[in-house]
Structure formats: C-alpha cells, structure tokens
C-alpha cells in the first residue's frame, strides 16, 4: 500500500482554526457580498438584518457574517448537489456582510426554498450562518429560520434545539417594512443564540 493510500485510510487532521482578528476587512472585503440576490434573481426578495451583541450586551463592530442558502426552488448552486444544482439561475447562495459601528449587518437576498433533510423529510426554509470575529478562535455555526415558514413546527434540525431556545433561531418580521426580517445574534446572556457543533 502506498503512503497516499495509507493516509487516505488514516485520514489527516484538520488544520487548526485561528481568529480572524480585528483587521479581516483587508482580506475579506473584496468578497463582501451583502447583496446575495440582485433583482434579476427569481424569488421573494427579502432583507435579513440584525445586530451582533457580546456578553455585556454591547454591539460587536468587528464581526463578519456569512450565509449559505438554497434558491427559491430549494436548490443549491453547488454541482455536488446534483442532479438538481441551482447553478444557472444566477444565484450563488453565498452572502458575506460585516457589522458596522453599531454592530449591525444587513443582507439582501431571497427567501430560500425547502431542502431535503434527514430521511427525505423537508426542512423549513433557512439560512446557514457563520459568524467570525476577533475573540472567536473558531467561527460559530448557526441557522436562521423565518417566522411562520412552512415546516417550522417539524423541522428536523430545529427539533434538536430545546424548545425554550428555538426562538433565537427565528427571525422577526419588521412592522411596516414588508420583506424585512430582523435577527440578532447574542453571543452570551439570557437570549444567547443557539450555536451548533457542526
């Protein structure tokens, strides 16, 4: 057996994570994508905005949020999701937005469709969200769902979350602003957002 074959069996250890630090803007700003879906993308256009707050309830002005989602039909723009990749619709599904001095972020996108979950059951529409900042040696992984979204009551991932904490993963509609949702990320505290061991 060659060394490569042996390594494939044994596997390699993932490289260790390190914080993005306070100056990530230099490297990550060229790919800031706060507009995930332009007007040409088919679907229900929405804004997902919110604040990132630390353990003292203070806004985090140096975080960056990344999101990953399906298109309106529930397809991902990744050839690996064949036979029904969403590529070609002009929608990449990837967003990246920094927080501002008040800890606010905003992403313009579309409401994702439903995608298959365990055992073929459909998941409720959601975005996968990654959170990076100084102070986080590894990024956080979470999800944000939509209020009154189809399948919310029996979403297989939400079902793993203690009932009293599920609300931290569900965005709020904003009165008087159709299509706008708010979702705050609380790093700590009574309303600490649910984060996943992914």
């Amino acid at each position, binding site marked *: 057996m060659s060394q490569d074959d042996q*390594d*494939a069996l044994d*596997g*390699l*250890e*993932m*490289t*260790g*994570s*390190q*914080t*993005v630090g*306070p*100056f*990530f803007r*230099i*490297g*990550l700003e*060229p*790919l800031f994508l706060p507009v995930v879906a332009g007007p040409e993308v088919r679907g229900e256009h929405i804004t997902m905005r919110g604040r990132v707050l*630390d*353990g*003292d309830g203070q806004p985090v002005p140096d975080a960056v949020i990344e999101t*990953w*989602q399906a298109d309106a039909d529930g397809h*991902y*723009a*990744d*050839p*690996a*999701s064949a036979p029904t990749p969403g590529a070609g619709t002009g929608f*990449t599904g*990837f967003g990246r937005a920094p927080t501002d001095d008040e800890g606010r972020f905003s992403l313009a996108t579309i409401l994702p469709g439903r*995608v*298959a979950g*365990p055992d*073929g059951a459909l*998941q409720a529409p959601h975005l*996968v969200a*990654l959170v*990076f900042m100084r*102070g*986080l*040696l*590894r*990024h*956080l*992984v979470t999800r944000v769902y939509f209020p009154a979204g189809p399948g919310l009551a029996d979403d297989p*991932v939400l079902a*793993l*979350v203690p009932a009293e*904490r599920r609300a931290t993963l569900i965005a709020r509609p904003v009165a008087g602003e159709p299509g706008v949702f708010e979702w705050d990320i609380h*790093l*700590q505290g009574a309303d*600490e*957002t649910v*984060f*996943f*061991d*992914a």
Partner: protein
Amino acid sequence: MAHDPQSVGLPGLRRPSAGAQPEYLYPPYASSIKRAPTRPLILLPHTLAEVTGPVFGYDALGPTDNDLTRQHSEEPLGERIFVSGRVLDVYNRPVRRALIEIWQANSAGRYHHKGDTHNAPLDPNFTGYGRVLTDDEGRYAFTTIKPGAYPWGNHHNAWRPQHIHFSLFGAGILSRLVTQMYFPGDPLLRDDAIYQSIRDECARERLIARFDWPTTIPMTGLGYTFDIVLRGRDATPMEQ
C-alpha cells in the same frame, strides 16, 4: 450531546480530534471571554444545507491578487518571500479550486486598516491583501513580504508573532476555515495566546510554515511551504 448523526442515518463528516481545534472560551485570550458562547453547542446533523457550499471560479481573481508585492507603483519594503503549499481534505485528497484569501501586516508590523493604532509606519506600496484559487493538485502560491511582529493589548507587553491570516473555502460550507500561518523559530510563539489556544502540540506546530529550499529563488527571496487540511466531504455519496 445525545444525537450522533451517524445513528440517525445522516452522511457524517469527520469531526476534529480533541485538542486539535481551539475551544471557544480560552481565558488567556482576553477577547474570548465576552464573545465565546456559554451554552452547550447543539450537535448538528449534516444535511444537504451543510454539505454543499459556494463554488468560485478563476474569473473572480485579479491579475496581481497572488502577488502582494506588485499591487502598487513600487515594491513594498521588507523581506520578499514565496509562500506555497497544498490544500488537502482529511481524506488526503487535493482540494481543487479552493478559494484562499490572505491578509497580513506590512514589514513594520502595521496593518493597512483604520483600526490599527500601532505607531509603526504604513507602507504606501503594501495593502496586505491577496487571493488565489488552488489548481487541480490543490496547490497554491503567493508572493509577499514577511510581515512584522506587532504589539497588542491582550496582556502586558503582548506581541503577536509574525503571521499571515488565511481564509479558505473547500467542498461544502462546513469546510470553511480561517487560520493563521506562522514562521519557524519565532520566539513570540511561546507566549502568544492565540497560537497557544490549540492545546495539541502537533496540531499547533502544523500552523508553522516550513522554510523551503526548492521554492527559494536565488538573489530574490526565501521560500516557505504551508499545507492546509480542510474538513472535506465524506467519501461516500451524498444523500439526496
């Protein structure tokens, strides 16, 4: 942590070994105290949402994105270096078209960022930003200058060792990795709270680039190699 994804019939991605990744809360790194989650994490099954991820093409890159010494009218000050390596997944397969984004301080230890108040000079010929996509063998290469060490406020007389920040996208959103590459023989590594946050010594040392003769160019600059291992998708077919 009751739910094992394997036990509920999901395609599982291998999870990291204990100590090979930092914990969220690491008190010697002061900034982690108010920003690390305090509640137990919920074990996430790996559904289609987690095993897919963004795909990037060469059209995303500019012509000098991989050469940080050629982005301005003159060359930056400092020691020119060549950083190259391979991006592999945990199954020892090359990660093709992995997007790598890097950023770093200039040779004086100062970032081109309004938040950096270190009283070292800025270099008008150095931004400290680079991007590259790996080739079919997972290889990448950057030309840059060796970043300087710089002080920070973590504790009295705290200094960051020389480092380059790396951000990577592999196969699937869960392969996302942000890390830092360090340099061999740096005496500041011993007391650096960020580097030391990785408990396993072998895992820590894999963040240190190796000096490399073959990529050292005569009369031009030193070569360093830094290989990176991403999580990658499971070798078994994805569940639909």
